[in-house]
């Protein structure tokens, strides 16, 4: 991990841009495959994708589902203090509804 050490919270709300400069929105969720712990537990959890998109007032209030893109972690090519750069065009990322965990 670069840009801000080995922590995860700083990625929240960071703009996501493709290599060609197209904006994909902001990071609003980080997804880890596997059910929430109830036993057996995990020694660590992997991160498989970032959910990003444009979030307006209705989405922030929870009245509307965000139109999110699921960006696999493997597509991230650079982490800057003010942006996450990802490989590939916007069309190559799936909408959240179509998203299935990479590990499955």
């Amino acid at each position, binding site marked *: 991990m670069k840009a801000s050490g080995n922590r*995860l919270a700083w990625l929240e709300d960071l703009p996501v841009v493709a290599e060609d400069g197209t904006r994909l929105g902001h990071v609003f969720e980080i997804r880890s495959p596997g059910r929430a712990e109830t036993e057996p537990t995990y020694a660590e959890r992997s*991160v498989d994708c970032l959910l990003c998109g444009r979030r307006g007032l209705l989405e922030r209030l929870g009245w509307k589902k965000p139109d999110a893109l699921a960006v696999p972690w493997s597509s991230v090519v650079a982490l800057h203090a003010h942006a996450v750069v990802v490989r590939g065009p916007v069309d190559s990322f799936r909408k959240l509804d179509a998203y299935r965990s990479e590990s499955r």
Partner: protein
Amino acid sequence: MKKGNPTPEYVDLYRQVLDHALLDADDWMCGTVDDLEVEGGLRRDGTNEPLRVTALLVGAGAWTPRLPALFARLLPHVVGSQCVRVPWSEVSELGEQIKLRSRAAALGLASADRRLGLWIAKLPGSERGEQ
């Protein structure tokens, strides 16, 4: 019979973990998750390793960097920069609260609360204090 929603096969780390309360093995509140420690990710040579969350971070040293820059610079002088690392293997349950396997004292959590509790116990009028 009406079927409930199946448990999702994923965890949303910001929504389900970050800023959630921690309960120790005795169900005592012992802080909130202020940040998550990760390993892997992008390396200096440009390779991208799988990213793994390895620990929960609790304490002022974990939440002050999340504040706007001015506060992030000033507040550590006031509230300190103590940060307790709780390995993810200690997490036994993820829900409304996050339950841990061990007691808070064993993990170094809620130490200020315990010190304050001992001090309050000495006050006249408290259960163990002088009358």
